[in-house]
C-alpha cells in the first residue's frame, strides 16, 4: 500500500490551549521537529482568562499536517485543534509599513492610505508609517501598491482566524 506524497500548500490551524508555561514551545516544536517553517503564529487572549488560541499558518503536505494535528491533540495542554484551511472563516491581520515619502509622492501615498483605511502612525521628513488592518489578501494588495515607493520596513502581526457562525 503506497503512501502518497501530497501537494505542498498553506494551512491555517487554530489551536486552543490552556494558558500554561511551556505551551508555546511544545506547539512550535511539533512543527520545527519536522523541518516545517511556520509562516506566522499568533497567540491570542480569549474570552476565557486561562485559555489562549494560537493561529498557525504553515506550509506543508496533507499527510504530514494530518499527523501534526494528531500530535497537537496529544499535547496535554491543548484543548482543541481546528483546521481552518478549508472552512468558512473571518481572518484579520495588521501591518505596519514604513515607506519612503519624498514630498512629491506624499499626496499619492496619503490617497492610497485612505482607500485602505490606513491610519497614519508616524511621519518623518523622508518617510511615512502607515498601519492597516484587514484580511490577509487585502494587506497583500496594500503592500504591493506601496512597493514602487520603496518600503523601508514592514511588519505583519500574523493572522487571527475565527470560524463563521
Amino acid at each position: 500500500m503506497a503512501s502518497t506524497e501530497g501537494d505542498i500548500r498553506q494551512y491555517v490551524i487554530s489551536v486552543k490551549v490552556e494558558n500554561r508555561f511551556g505551551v508555546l514551545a511544545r506547539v512550535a516544536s511539533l512543527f520545527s521537529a519536522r523541518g516545517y517553517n511556520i509562516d506566522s503564529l499568533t497567540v491570542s487572549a480569549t474570552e476565557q482568562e486561562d485559555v489562549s488560541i494560537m493561529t498557525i499558518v504553515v506550509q506543508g503536505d496533507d499527510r504530514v499536517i494530518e499527523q501534526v494535528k494528531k500530535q497537537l491533540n496529544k499535547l496535554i495542554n491543548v484543548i482543541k485543534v481546528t483546521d481552518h484551511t478549508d472552512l468558512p472563516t473571518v481572518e484579520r491581520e495588521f501591518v505596519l509599513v514604513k515607506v519612503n515619502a519624498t514630498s512629491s509622492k506624499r499626496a499619492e501615498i496619503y490617497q492610497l492610505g485612505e482607500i485602505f483605511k490606513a491610519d497614519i502612525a508616524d511621519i518623518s521628513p523622508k518617510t511615512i508609517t502607515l498601519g492597516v488592518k484587514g484580511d490577509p489578501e487585502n494587506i497583500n494588495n496594500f503592500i504591493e501598491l506601496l512597493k514602487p515607493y520603496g518600503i523601508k520596513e514592514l511588519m505583519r502581526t500574523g493572522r487571527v482566524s475565527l470560524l463563521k457562525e
Partner: protein
Amino acid sequence: MKGADIIVESLKQEKVEHMFGYPGGVVIPIFHALYNAPFRFILSRHEQGAVHAADGYARASGRPGVVIATSGPGATNCVTGIATAHMDSVPLIVFTGQVKREQIGNDAFQEVDITGITRPITKHNYLVQDIKDLARIIKEAFYIATTGRPGPVLIDVPVDISNAEYKFSYPETVHLRGYKPVYEGHPGQIKKACQLIENSKRPVIYAGGGVVISNASKELREFVKKTQIPVTTTLLGLGVYPETDRLSLEMLGMHGTYYANHAVNESDLLIAVGARFDDRVTGKIAEFIPSAEVIHIDIDPASVSKNVPVNIPIVGDCKQVLAEMTQIIKAPEIDEWLAVVDGLKREHPLTYEKNDKGRIKPQFVVEEIYKQTKGDAIICTEVGQNQMWAAQFYKYTQPRTFISSGGLGTMGYGFPAAIGAQLARPEKRVIDIAGDGSIQMNIQELIVAVQHRLPVIIAILNNGFLGMVRQWQQLFYEKRYSHTCIDFAPDFVKLAEAYGAVGMRIDTYEEVAPALQKALEITDRPIILDFRISREENVYPMVPAGQSFKEIIMRELLA
C-alpha cells in the same frame, strides 16, 4: 509541611512500593524526607541505571516506575532512560531537582533546562513554580503517565520548592481539559471490522506492545479461539499469544520468522492490534502488504494511519475492543489459509546450523535457557544480535515475560531493567540475555543486584564483536569490520567476583546445561555466565533495512 514531605506523602497516596534514584545537591531535601519513607529505595550507581530499572519494574508489573535524580548531570543522565521509556510507552514518573527558582536561567551551578531537553521524549513534563501546585502536579503526573497510551512524565522541582511550606492535601481527581483518552471503540467501526473479518480469506492478526500494556492478552486469546486467525507479534508483543500454539506465527519484521512475514505479505486482511507499523516491521513501506486491507485498533489516534493507510481505524483500548469484537463476531471460513500457514511453518522453520564441536552457537544457548527455565522466566535483553536470538529461540507464552528496548534500541538497557523486573517479580527467575558490548554499558549496576541479593542471571553471548553492527558490515559493507571488534575485553568471571557476584565461563556445548543449572540453583546473588559463542554467527532470517519481504535472506550465503 515542606515541599519535600509533600512529595513523599503524595507517593504514599499513590501506593508506591519501590523508588529508584541517585542523590545530589538540590535534591538533598527530598532525600531527607525519603530517609524514613515506608517504601523501598534502590540506589543505582548511575542515573541511567535507575531509569531503566524503574522501566523494567513497570514493564514487569504494569505499575508505574518512580525515579529521582539531581539537577544538571543527574537529570541529563536520565535522558536515555526517559527516551527509551517514551518510545515503548512505559509509565514512569521522574523527579529531577532544579536550582532555586530565582537562579533559573542564570547558568547556575548544575543548572540545565531539563523540561526543555525532555519535551520531545516525555508524554508531559512540569516545572513546579509554586508550592501550591506541587501535590496537584504529582497527581496529574501519575494519571497522565498511566492512562491512555502510557509514557514517562518528568517533574522538575526547584530546591526552594522542596524547602517551602504548604499544607498537604492530595487531590482526589484530576481536571485536564485537553486530555481525555478514549477507551471505548466506536460501535459502528467495530461492527464494520467484524464484517470485514468474517468475509476475509487470508486474515492475519498483528499484535504489538499495546496488547501487553492494556493487559489484553486474555481477550486476544479468546478472540483467536473464536476466529482461528493466525497471530504474529512484534518484538514488544512477544508473549501476548503463546508461541507454542499452532496459530502462532511468532515474531514478524526484519528478523521475524519466514512464515510470519510470508503470511503477512500474502494476507488479504491485516488486523493490527496495539502495534504501530514500525519500519523494522514493514520494511519498504510501498511494498508492504500488497493485497491486504487493514484494521487498526489502537488507543493512540496519532498511531493510526501514520505509516500505512488504514481501512477501518478503531481508536480505543485493545482490551475492550477485542472483548466486544469476540462477542459479536462469527468465525471466517479460512481452512484453506490455515493449511497454507501450517505448510509455511513446516517448510521454513526457524533454524540454525548446529555443530557439536567448535564454538557454541548462541541460538543453542537461548534454546537451553528456555528448556532449563521451562519457559517460565522473565527474559530481558540488551540490543543487537543477542536481542534477536532471545526473541527468536525462546518461546514466550505469557505477557510481561519479554522485556526489551524496542523503539529506541538502547544498549545497556537489559541489565538494569532486569534488576527492576526482579524487584517487581521476586518469585520469578529473571535473565538478561546480553552481548559483550551492551553489558559493559551499565555494568556498574551489578553492585545494586549484589546489595539487594537479586539472583538476576546475566547470560552474555560473547562473540568479541559488536555483533549486529559487524553483521551489517559483513553483509552490506564489504566485510570491513571498522571498529566493531571488542575482543580486547575484561575477564567477566573476575569482574563478577570483584562485585561479589558469581561468574562462570562456558566454552563448550557440554558445559552449557550444567552452568545454567548451577546458576538457577543460586538464589541470593547475581550470576554472570560468559558464553563464548561462535564469533561470526549472524541473525537470520533477515529482511535488509528498507527492503521488502521478497528480499529476505534465509541463511548464510556461501561466498
